[in-house]
C-alpha cells in the first residue's frame, strides 16, 4: 500500500504520541487524525486505516473517533471549509442570518461544496466563542468573529 502520510506528518504524530505513556499510544488518536486531515484535507478510509496502523489500533476504533467529532471530515471538502455556529447563543445574535447569507451567496446548503470546489459550508456546534457571535471557522483552525454580511463578504474576498 502506498504511504499517504508524509514523513513530516509522521514526525508531528510522533510528537503527539510522546505526550502519553508508551502503552497508551492510542491516546494520540485525535491529534493524529487532526494532523492527517490537515495534510490531506479530509479523512479517507485509507487514511483512517493508515493512522490506525501507525498507532497500532484497530481501524474501526479510529473510525469511531473520526466519525464522532464533527470537525473530522469523512468526505472530500472544498479548499475552504466554512463552519458556521448555529447553536443557541449564536443563533440569538445573528448566527442563523450569517448562515443563510452564506448559503445564498455561495449557492449551496449545509454539507455541500461549490461547483468550483472552493467552498464547503458546514453547520457547526458551539465553539466557545459565543461572546463574539456570530462566529465562523475557516478550515477548522482560523476563527472569524462577528460575522455580519459585510464581514463575510470581506472574508470571502480574502480567501483565494
Amino acid at each position, binding site marked *: 500500500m502506498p504511504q499517504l502520510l508524509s514523513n513530516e506528518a509522521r514526525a508531528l504524530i510522533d510528537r503527539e504520541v510522546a505526550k502519553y505513556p508508551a502503552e497508551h499510544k492510542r491516546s494520540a488518536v485525535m491529534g493524529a487524525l487532526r494532523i492527517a486531515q490537515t495534510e490531506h484535507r479530509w479523512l479517507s478510509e485509507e487514511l483512517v486505516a493508515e493512522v490506525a496502523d501507525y498507532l497500532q489500533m*484497530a481501524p*474501526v*476504533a479510529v473510525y469511531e473517533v473520526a466519525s*464522532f467529532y464533527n470537525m473530522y471530515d469523512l468526505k472530500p471538502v472544498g479548499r475552504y471549509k466554512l463552519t458556521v455556529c448555529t447553536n443557541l447563543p449564536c443563533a440569538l445574535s445573528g448566527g442563523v442570518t450569517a448562515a443563510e447569507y452564506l448559503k445564498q451567496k455561495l449557492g449551496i446548503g449545509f454539507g455541500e461544496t461549490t461547483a468550483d470546489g472552493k467552498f464547503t459550508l458546514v453547520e457547526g456546534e458551539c465553539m466557545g466563542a459565543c461572546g463574539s457571535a456570530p462566529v465562523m471557522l475557516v478550515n477548522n483552525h482560523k476563527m472569524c468573529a462577528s460575522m455580519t454580511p459585510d464581514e463575510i463578504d470581506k472574508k470571502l474576498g480574502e480567501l483565494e
Partner: protein
Amino acid sequence: MLEIEIDGKKTTVAPGSTVMDAARALGVHIPHFCYHKKLSIAASCRMCLVEVEKAPKPLPACATPVTAGMVVKTHSNAAVTAQKGVMEFLLINHPLDCPICDQGGECHLQDIAVGYGAGESRYREEKRIVPNKDLGPLITTEMTRCIHCSRCVRFTEEVAGYQELGLAHRGEHSEVMPFLGKTVNSEISGNVIDLCPVGALTSKPFRYTVRAWELSRRKSIAPHDGLGSNLIVQVKNHKVMRVLPLENEAINECWLSDRDRFSYEALNSASRATKPQVKKDGQWIETDWQSALELVAGKLKDTVAAHGRDSVAALATPNSTVEELFMLRKLMAGLGVEQVETRLRAADFRLHTAGATWLGQSIAELAQSDAVLVIGSNIRKEQPLLAQRLRQSAKRGMKLSVLNPARYDLLAPLAGELIVRPDQMVEALLTVLKAACEAAGKTAPAHIDLSSIEVCDASRSIAATLTAHSAILLGNLAAHHPRYAELHAAAAALAELSGAKLGVMSEAANTVGAQLIGAETSGNLFASPKKALILLNAEVQFDCHNATEALAAVRAADFVVALNPFADGVKDYADVILPVAPFTETSGTFVNMEGRAQSFNGVVRPLGETRPAWKVLRVLGNVLGFNGFDYESSEAIRDEALAGDIAPRLSNALKAPVAVKAQAASGLVRLGEVPLYQLDALTRRAPALQATADAAEPALRANAATLAGLSLKAGDSACAAQAGGKALLCVREDTTLPDGVIHIAGSHPLTTGLGGLFAPVTVERAG
C-alpha cells in the same frame, strides 16, 4: 469488606464491587442490557438505574461502586420510574418488529419491555432506520433493532482480542459497524449472537427456520477440539436446528467457538449415508444391515485366516467416542488383530509416556499460570477458546511465549517469541533448554545432546519466564511433527528443570480417551501393506498425516469397510459403507484435554437406517461369535472402558528416554497446517463455516525472500511436489513465515496429492 443492603437484604462485598455484583450475589435481579459479567463496564444503556439512599438521583447499578453502609432500592417508586423512563427511550427508535424477528421469545428487550414498558408508545415521530452490515456468513444483522449496548463491540475487542466492530457516529446517528468493507472474521465471532440482547445480531444459518419456543434443549459435548465445550443442542422434529453454549466456567465459560456452534449444519447435509452400501463390480448397492454385517464379518475373518493378523488394521479418528473405540479395539482383539490407531495425523511414534498425554492440569489451573510457553500451535485455530483464556491471562500479566513455525497472531501480548522453520523447532527448543540449564547451573538429561546448541537472547528471555508456577504446552503442530518425540522429550526436560508443568493440548475431542483405552497401538499403519482395513469415522485423504501414502494404502487393500456418517468421502476406496451416528445421534463419552470424561446422550433419532457405531461393532462381534459383546447400553461399555479413576492414568512423563540431537536443515520445507474448518468430517461439511475467511482455499504461501528465490510472485500458479505427489496452487506472499518455509495446508481436497505435512517440498512455476 463493605456492608450493603439491597431491597432490605444485607450482604458484604469486597471493596471495588459494584451494586450489580452485590445484587447478583444476593439473587436480586436488576434489569440490564449493556452489563455482562465477562465484559468491561460500559454503563451505556441505563436500564439498571436504582435508587441509592442519600444519592440525589438514580444511579446505574452496573457502574456504581459499593460504599460502606449503602442502602439500595431496586423496586422503589423512584427506581421503577427511572427504569420505565429508560425503557421508553430505548423503544423510541426500536422497530418493535418482534413478529418477524428471530430473537422473539428469547429477547432481553422483549422480556424487559414486558416488565417495564408501557402498553402503548407516546412517541409519534419518525423512527430512524439503520442500514444492515455484512458481517460474513455466520452473523446476520438487523441494525435498526440495535440499542447500542456495545456488548458486541466490547466482545470483539476484549474477548476475541481484536476490535472488529465499532460504534461509529454519534447520538441518534450511532451505528454498530465493522471497518468499512470488512467482515467479522474471529474464530469465536458467533458469541456476539448470544451477547446481543436484541435481534440486531442473529445466526445467519438459523435465520427464519424456526421459532425459539418450538425447540427443545438437549445437553451435549462438542466433538471437535480437545476442550470439550458443553453444548445445548436445540432440536425440532428430530432435526438439529441450532447449537448454543451450555455455561461451564471450568471449560468453555459462557462461550463457544464458531466451529462448535455452526458445525451442526453438516448433520443435515445431503451427503449423509442413510443405508448400508456395498460395492459390487464398481457399483454401489444399498443393502440391509444383516447382509452388510455378515459380509464384513466374513471378509475380516477370511482375511485374518488367509493372510495372518498383521494383514488387518483399524483406523479411527480421535473424534470417535470412548465407547466406539473400546468396541473397535475389542472387536479387533477378537480377530486377533493388534493394530488399532487413532493418531492418524502423527508422523513420529517413538514417544512412550507413562500414561495418556494431557494438559497436565485443569484448564482453570492453566489459566492461573504465571507464564506459559506454547510450542508448535496455531492455538487460536486449534483450540479457539483455550487461546481466549490464555489471552485473558496474558492481559492480567501472565507471560505468554511461543515457539512456532510461523508468526501466528495470538492477539495477546507476548513475552517471548521464537519463530523457526518447522524442521528447526527441536533445535529452537534446545536453545531454550540450554538457556534454562545455564541459568540454573544444571545439566540436561544424558539423552539430550546440547553440545552444538547456541543460546540466543530470545531463548534466554523465554527460559527466564518459566518458573514453578508456569506451563509448557505442546500443540497440534508439535503432535504432527516428524520429530514429535524429540519435541516432547526436550519440553519434558525443560519442564523438569524449571518446575513448569508440561501439557499436551489434545487435537480432538477424544484424543485423551483414545489413549486411555489403548486405541493407539500400531504407529504408522501404512508402513506395511494391509489386506483389509476398518475405518471408523476416518476419511484417510483428510485425516492422515500423509494423504498420498494413506490413499495408496487404502486403494491397495483388498477390502475396506468404512463406518462413517457420510458416504461421499470414502466412496472412492471403500468396499462397504456402514452409516454410523454422528455425536448427536448416539450416546457416548469424550475425555477432554484435562482428563475430564464427559458423557452425553443422543439428542435426535439416527437419520434413516443410521446406527450408533458402538451398536454396529457390538453386532459385528456377535455375528463373529465372539464372547463379551452383549452390552446393554453405552454406559455399560463406558463403565468397563474407563473403570476406575482416570487421573492416575494421565501422564506426560517419558517411559523411556528419547535421544534428542540437533540436526541441520536446508532447502524448502512444507508447513502443513490442518485448517480450522478441515479438522474433521463434520466441520468439512458445514456450509456456513466453509464460507468463512478461515476456510479460504489453501495457497502456496512463502515470505518475499523465499518467493524471490523461486522467481515467483503473489498471484502466480505454482506446482508443489513431495515424494509421491503434487499439487497445483496459487501463490501468496506471507510475511509471517521464516525463510525456506512453504505453507501448504493439509487435509484439504486441493492438497491431498501431497505427502508429509512437514516434509521437504519442491516448487516450480506452473504454466
